[in-house]
């Protein structure tokens, strides 16, 4: 990481232009991915990502440059490109006094909310591969129809430092651990898979509570359910979406459309709707980047602002958007600590952290009352949304048919589609069983870790795309 004096010098060079704000983001990340197929270690990949990103603003115009080089000549070259693009001083100068371009940085200290105890970088490889063996063995032991297990361990240690022309200098260390297990089940008719992918913002101590055996067994359980599943019927029907990764529905159907990226340029169905009812009154939702050691948490965002707990919807009323620094300028609102990015190779923009619907009052049994024919989506796959139109889709990873208020048999191949603004109004029951699940969210600033979450919710009518020819 660059020294304070050097950062001040570079920021001063940035501000000796028409820019009214400058920021330098530095990053060094070590990532280790260990892959095991049916008990044999296939590969160990270590990657060091290291570079610098420099950003200048003039009003709502933004220019950004990045490089993996730490050479002074390269950095000064980038600054030259940026000041040239945003407006260099002419013969009359920038109109700024030397005092106005002088930057004095002050380091911001704070208490780390997300400490990590067991560092993967100093843990012997055999201890890490043993975790994968435990998950694999447990999955294979569930049933003889489990014929193959792919298990992957992901470990990340990321150091970031952010300095800006407002004099702020701040650092963060993010540690993340995740295991992904996929079990393959086979019988005389089918060959299917099932997975489990838990993770957290902590070190290898994650596996003290989340046992690798449980991860392997859960992957095997889902694969076996899918083995006996029938093709899913199609059409509009009531759907119960269970907790944890089921929250991907809120993430896709609503979360992305509440990001300043979409709202600031009036490209969201929820633009201009603060204070209005956008969801059924039983729905309250938050985006909380402060949860200790959660997968989507961090002390500060990638613009150097502290992460926050943002109440997005309260009893159906839209309360807040998720706003990055540039989005805030466009919207005339304060940033909410939501500026995130995959790496220095992306300009930060407004992103989610840990986003979830808050618990409601219904019991799990009450959710099923009165449903003649519907779908119970116990586990969701991924999905996507077009924030401009609000249209979203996502895949059901483990689903069951509901007939006369009871779960009858498992179904596979289901997709749920709809429009975000409609679906939020059509949630009529919210259960009390809140849990979160882990995922990777893709958007214009890259792929970042986020938690999704919710208690089980009931949607009165949603289009189910199934593979059954009914």
């Amino acid at each position, binding site marked *: 990481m660059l020294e304070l004096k050097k950062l001040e010098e570079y920021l001063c060079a940035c501000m000796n232009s028409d820019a009214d704000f400058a920021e330098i983001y530095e990053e060094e990340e070590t990532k280790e991915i260990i892959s095991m*197929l049916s008990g044999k270690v296939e590969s160990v990949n*270590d990657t060091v990502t290291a570079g610098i990103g420099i950003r200048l603003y003039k009003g709502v115009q933004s220019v*950004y440059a*990045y490089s993996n080089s730490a050479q002074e000549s390269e950095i000064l070259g*980038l600054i030259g490109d940026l000041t040239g693009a945003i407006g260099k001083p002419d013969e009359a100068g920038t109109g700024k006094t030397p005092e106005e371009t002088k930057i004095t940085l002050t380091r911001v200290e704070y208490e780390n909310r997300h400490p990590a105890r067991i560092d993967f970088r100093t843990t012997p490889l055999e201890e890490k591969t043993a975790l994968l063996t435990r998950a694999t063995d447990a999955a294979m032991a569930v049933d003889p129809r489990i014929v193959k297990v792919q298990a992957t361990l992901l470990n990340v240690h990321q150091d970031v430092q952010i300095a800006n022309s407002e004099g702020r200098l701040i650092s963060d260390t993010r540690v993340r651990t995740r295991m992904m297990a996929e079990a393959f089940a086979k019988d005389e008719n089918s060959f299917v898979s099932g997975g489990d992918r838990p993770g957290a913002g902590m070190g290898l101590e994650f596996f003290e509570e989340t046992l690798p055996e449980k991860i392997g067994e859960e992957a095997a359980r889902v694969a076996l359910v899918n083995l006996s599943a029938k093709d899913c019927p*199609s059409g509009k029907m009531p759907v119960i979406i269970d907790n944890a990764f089921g929250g991907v529905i809120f993430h896709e159907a609503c979360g992305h459309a509440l990001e300043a990226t979409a709202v600031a340029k009036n490209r969201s169905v929820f633009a201009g709707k603060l204070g209005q009812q956008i969801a059924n009154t039983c729905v309250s939702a938050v985006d909380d980047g402060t949860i200790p050691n959660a997968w989507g948490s961090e002390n500060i965002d990638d613009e150097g602002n502290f992460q926050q707990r943002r109440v997005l919807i309260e009893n159906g009323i839209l309360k807040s958007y998720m706003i990055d620094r540039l989005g805030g300028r466009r919207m005339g609102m304060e940033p909410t600590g939501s500026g995130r990015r995959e790496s220095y190779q992306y300009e930060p923009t407004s992103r989610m952290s840990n986003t979830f619907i808050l618990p409601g009052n219904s019991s799990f049994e009450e959710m099923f009352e009165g449903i003649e024919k519907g779908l119970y989506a116990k586990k969701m796959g991924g999905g*996507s949304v077009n924030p401009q139109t609000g249209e979203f889709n996502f895949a059901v990873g483990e689903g069951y048919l509901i007939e006369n208020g009871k779960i009858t048999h498992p179904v596979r191949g289901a997709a749920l589609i709809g429009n975000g603004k409609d679906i939020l109004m059509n949630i009529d029951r919210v259960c009390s069983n809140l849990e979160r699940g882990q995922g990777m969210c893709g958007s214009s600033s890259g792929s970042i870790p986020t938690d999704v979450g919710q208690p089980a919710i009931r949607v009165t009518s949603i289009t*189910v795309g199934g*593979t059954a020819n009914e």
Partner: protein
Amino acid sequence: MNKELWLKAAAEKGFESFEIYQAFHAEKTYSWFDGQLDSFVTSSVTGTALRGIYNKKMVGFSTEKDDDSAVVKVLDAMEQQAGAITSDDEAVIFPPFEDAPEPAASSRKWVRPDAAQVKELLSQIEKKILAYDPAIRQVSFLQWTEQTDSRQITNSLGMRAEDTGYAQVLVAGAAAVREGEVKDSYLEEVIEDLAGFDADGFVKKLCEDTLAKLGAESVPSGQYRVIFKNEAMTSLFAAFSDIFSGERIGKGISPLAGKVGEAVFSEVINVVDDPRCDKTVRLMNYDDEGHPTAKKTVVDRGVFTTVLHSSRSAARMNTKSTGNGFKSSYASAVDVRPMNCCILPGAKTLEEMCGEMGDGIVITALAGLHAGLDHVTGDFSLQCSGYLVKDGRRDRSVTLITVAGNYLDMMKRAVCAGNDLDWKYYTIACPSVAFAGCAISGE
């Protein structure tokens, strides 16, 4: 990076062979919004991926730090990796290929505009889009990108390979509003020389596509005759392109496992993988292992003829690499990937295909491809949009429907491939393809 230093140190450490792969990427992106330059991004990144064979095990380490002093630490880490790997895979680093075919050369003649020309282009496109129709309310995306990519492979066996690619692309999006309904479309075009660019034609296509989406409704669920328009067919074919991978076939997790020589698609489908195809933006004379590439017929009149291989997957199946060992980024492991792979075009236009279909649906876009398909079974269920065809002619637009089925079953029901193959900047592309029947879910 002092490559000789690294190769020498690796040899002294006991590596049987050692490879240094470097990828350089530089990009300039201009984004336009509301009458002015919205953002400008410039970049220059070199990534280095090291691979070595130690005790017959392949190990890897990737870094963006240009730091020769780390050589001892990195080689120690790679040695430890070798001790942890228990797979029986044969590890291969290739020597130079003395009999490699002559490299193909791109026929592209890029004329690079300066910043002022780019800004003028974006300004004009924005004005033309907004003036096209009162229902067009917003230019939702407008961007010019210039990117340069280079690869260099150097190894201890004497391999020295390098190449460079360049592309410049215009992407625009428009949003239309009518009675509260919002629809948007995007269009991209690879432009070799602005002097030959038809801005009016580009804007017309984008705006007409956007306006046509207004008034879209769902349809009753049922079996429909369907044409996947070229862009939609490309996205589905690309999402399932890993079914040809020797890596997945060798592991038995591709629906094409054990099916070489069998009719797996309809006889109207021919698939060719040609990394040296000069109609594409990225012509590849060698793969990311330095193995020479070649043109291959993957599916011949519906019959699966060629499994694509890297060195690892080929060794597993006791055969030779097809030169398809490619990485998704410099830091990722070598995988098996099609490169400049397409369904060969037929003779008919989309209009002629619609005429033959009579009544049915043309699917123009698919969503949810990263989640809504099962790569093991080939089952899929995807959100899509497009338009109805009645008596062979375009009728109203359709949205919020899903198309579902099994990919192999569907490809067996293909009745015609159109003549509209368009590579744009893709490495996988398809013409429009008509199918006898598909399950559509709607109302």
